[in-house]
C-alpha cells in the first residue's frame, strides 16, 4: 500500500448566491460538503459525478484557486490552505492541471514552444539553453514533433492541442496531475490516443492522477480507485472493480444503469433512472428524492461515508441490505 500524497479533511465550500434584484435574497450553495479523501502516491483516483456535483470546485480548491470555507488539505503532510505566496508557488510546481477544453486554455498569441516553456520561466528553472532542450524533449514525449514548435494553437487539431496542454502541465515534473475532463471535448478516435498517452506518461514520470470525468467508460479504463460524488458529497469510494461489479450506493447503481452499453444485444437492467440532481432536502440524505430504497431514516439523518470493509466506503443507511 502506498502512502498518501494528499489528505483532504472535512473540506467544505459554500458559495453565497444572491437572487432577486430589488430585494436581493442571499442563498447558500454548498458546492463541496464535508469531503474526506486521500490520494495515494502513484495511483489514479477517478472522480465521477454529474454536472454541478462539485467535482471542479474540489479541483480548484486543491489547486488553491478557491479558498475552502472549512477543512484542510495536506500535501505531503503540509497544510496547503495556510501556505503563503512563496510556499504556494513551490506547491504549484508539484500540482498541475490539465483542462477540458484545449481551445480556450492555451494562449493564442504564443507558439507551442512558448506555451510549454512559460512555466519554466515563471518558476525560474534551468538556463535558457537548457529550457530549449527541455521543451523539445517534452514535445517528443507527448507525441508532437520539433516542426510543431513554432506553430500557434489555432494551427493544431483538438487532439494535438490537448497534447500541448499536457506538455505544459508536465514540464515542471509535478507529482500530482489534476485532469479535469481531459478527453470530454475530443472525438472518440482521438480520445483513445490521449488516454494511452496519459497512461504512458504516468509510468514514465511516476505521476499521481486525480482524474475527473463524467464518462464511466473512461473512468473505468483509467482509475485504480473511484470516488462517486453527488451534490457536493462523496457517496461511494471503492476500488475500480468493486464500483463496477458490486456497487453499494443506489446512486452508483443508477449511474451505471444509465450509461449506454456498447452492445445492442445487452438489454439494460431495469433500475429506474429518474429525477434530477437538485438539492431540495434540508435534512437527511441528499439522494433521497431519487432513491428507490428510501426509508424513514433517510429523511431524518444524513448518512456518513462509512467503512464497509475491504477499503470500500459508502454513504447510505441501507448499504449492504439492498
Amino acid at each position, binding site marked *: 500500500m502506498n502512502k498518501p500524497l494528499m489528505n483532504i479533511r472535512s473540506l467544505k465550500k459554500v458559495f453565497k448566491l444572491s437572487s432577486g434584484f430589488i430585494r436581493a435574497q442571499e442563498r447558500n450553495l454548498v458546492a463541496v460538503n464535508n469531503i474526506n479523501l486521500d490520494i495515494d502516491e502513484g495511483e489514479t483516483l477517478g472522480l465521477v459525478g454529474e454536472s454541478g456535483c462539485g467535482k471542479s470546485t474540489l479541483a480548484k480548491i486543491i489547486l488553491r484557486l478557491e479558498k475552502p470555507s472549512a477543512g484542510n488539505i495536506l500535501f505531503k503532510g503540509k497544510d496547503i490552505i495556510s501556505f503563503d505566496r512563496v510556499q504556494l508557488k513551490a506547491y504549484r510546481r508539484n500540482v498541475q492541471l490539465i483542462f477540458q477544453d484545449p481551445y480556450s486554455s492555451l494562449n493564442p498569441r504564443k507558439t507551442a514552444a512558448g506555451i510549454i516553456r512559460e512555466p519554466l520561466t515563471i518558476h525560474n528553472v534551468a538556463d535558457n539553453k537548457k529550457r530549449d532542450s527541455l521543451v523539445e524533449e517534452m514535445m517528443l514525449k507527448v507525441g508532437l514533433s520539433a516542426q510543431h514548435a513554432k506553430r500557434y494553437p489555432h494551427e493544431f487539431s483538438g*487532439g494535438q492541442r490537448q497534447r500541448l496542454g499536457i506538455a505544459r502541465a508536465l514540464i515542471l515534473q509535478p507529482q500530482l496531475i489534476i485532469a479535469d475532463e481531459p478527453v470530454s471535448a475530443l472525438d*472518440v*478516435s*482521438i480520445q*483513445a490516443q490521449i*488516454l494511452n498517452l496519459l497512461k504512458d506518461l504516468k509510468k514514465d514520470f511516476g505521476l499521481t492522477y486525480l482524474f475527473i470525468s463524467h464518462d464511466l*467508460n473512461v473512468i473505468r479504463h483509467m482509475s485504480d480507485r473511484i470516488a462517486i460524488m453527488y451534490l457536493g458529497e462523496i457517496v461511494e469510494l471503492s476500488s475500480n472493480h468493486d464500483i463496477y461489479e458490486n456497487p453499494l450506493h443506489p446512486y452508483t447503481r443508477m*449511474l451505471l444503469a444509465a450509461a449506454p452499453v*456498447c452492445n445492442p*444485444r445487452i438489454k439494460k437492467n431495469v433500475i429506474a433512472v429518474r429525477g434530477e440532481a437538485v438539492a431540495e432536502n434540508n435534512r437527511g440524505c441528499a439522494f433521497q428524492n431519487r432513491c428507490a430504497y428510501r426509508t424513514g431514516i433517510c429523511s431524518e439523518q444524513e448518512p456518513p461515508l462509512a467503512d464497509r470493509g475491504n477499503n470500500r466506503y459508502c454513504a447510505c443507511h441501507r448499504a449492504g441490505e439492498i
Partner: protein
Amino acid sequence: MPCLLKIKDLVTVFNTVKGKITAVDDVSLCIEEGETLGIVGESGCGKTMLALSIMRLIPPNGEIAGGSISFRGEELLKKSEEEMRRLRGSEIAMIFQEPMTSLNPVIRIGEQIAEAIRLHQGLAARDAHALSIRQLEEVGIPEPQRRALDYPHQLSGGMRQRVMIAMAMSCHPRLLLADEPTTALDVTIQAQILDLIDALKKKNNMSVLLITHDLGIVAQSTQKVAVMYAGKIVEMADVDDIYSAPKHPYTRGLMESIPARCPDQNGYLKTIPGSVPSLYDLAPGCRFYDRCSLAFDKCSRQEPNLEEVAPGHLVSCWKCNSN
C-alpha cells in the same frame, strides 16, 4: 417495408473563403416507417449538414448540389419555400443539442409550444394552450399547468430538452430528426430523454433519425446505423450486424477505441492513427487511406463505392468489396 424518407445521391456543398467543400458527398439512405436510423461519426463528418439538408435549412453559403430527398413519395428538393415551411414542424420535426439556444428566452414555454400548434393546426389560442399543457404532461414535466408559465432559464437542461421534444411532437410528425439530443446532458438525464424519445416513437409510429457521436447510444436506441466519415457513408447495416461484425476499418477502429469495450492485455486502447482529413484538399482515392492499416495501392488511386457485402450490409472499402 416502404421508405418514409429516401435519400439518393445527395450532395451538399459549401462555398467558404478557403474554397469549396463537399460536406455531404453522395449520400443515399432510407428510413422506414417506425424505424430509428443512427448516424454516427466524428465532428465535421457531415452528419448535422445531412439533417439540415433534409429540412432544407442549410446555412446561406451552402447549397444542395445534387441528388434527391423523397419524403412519403414527394420530392422535397422540388418544393417551394412555402410548402417546406408547412412541412417543417408538422411532418418533419427537429431537436438540437443545446435546447437553450433553440428556445426563445423571453417567451413562456407554454406559449412557445402553443405557437407551433396554432401555426400548423390552426387552433384557437385557448385550445392551443390546453393542448400545449397536455404535450408538457406527455413528455413527463411535473406540474405542467404551472411549468407552462416558466421561461426557459427557469428550467434545468433536461427539462428544456423535454420542452423541445414537446414542441417537436405537438403536431405528430412522421419523422423526427434528433441532432445529438443528449450530448449536453448528464448521463442519468440522457437515459431518461432517450427512453422518452423511444416511447413517443412507438406510440406515434414515428421514424427517427438519431445523430450522435456516442456508439453506446447507437447500440441502445437504433435499429439501423450509418457510419459517416469525411462527408461519406462508409458503412451501413442493422445495428446487430454493425456491432457484432463491423467491416469497414474505420468502423472497427471506432469500436476498438471505446474504453471498456476492447482494451488489450496491457490496458491500452487501440487507436486510429492520425486525424480526419481536411475537406479542403482531399486526395484522390479512399478518404481513410492514410489512417488505414489495410490500405493497398488501389486505395490511393480509386475511391471505393458503397456496396452490399452481405444482405443489408453496405460497406465502402476495397478490402471488403468482392471485386
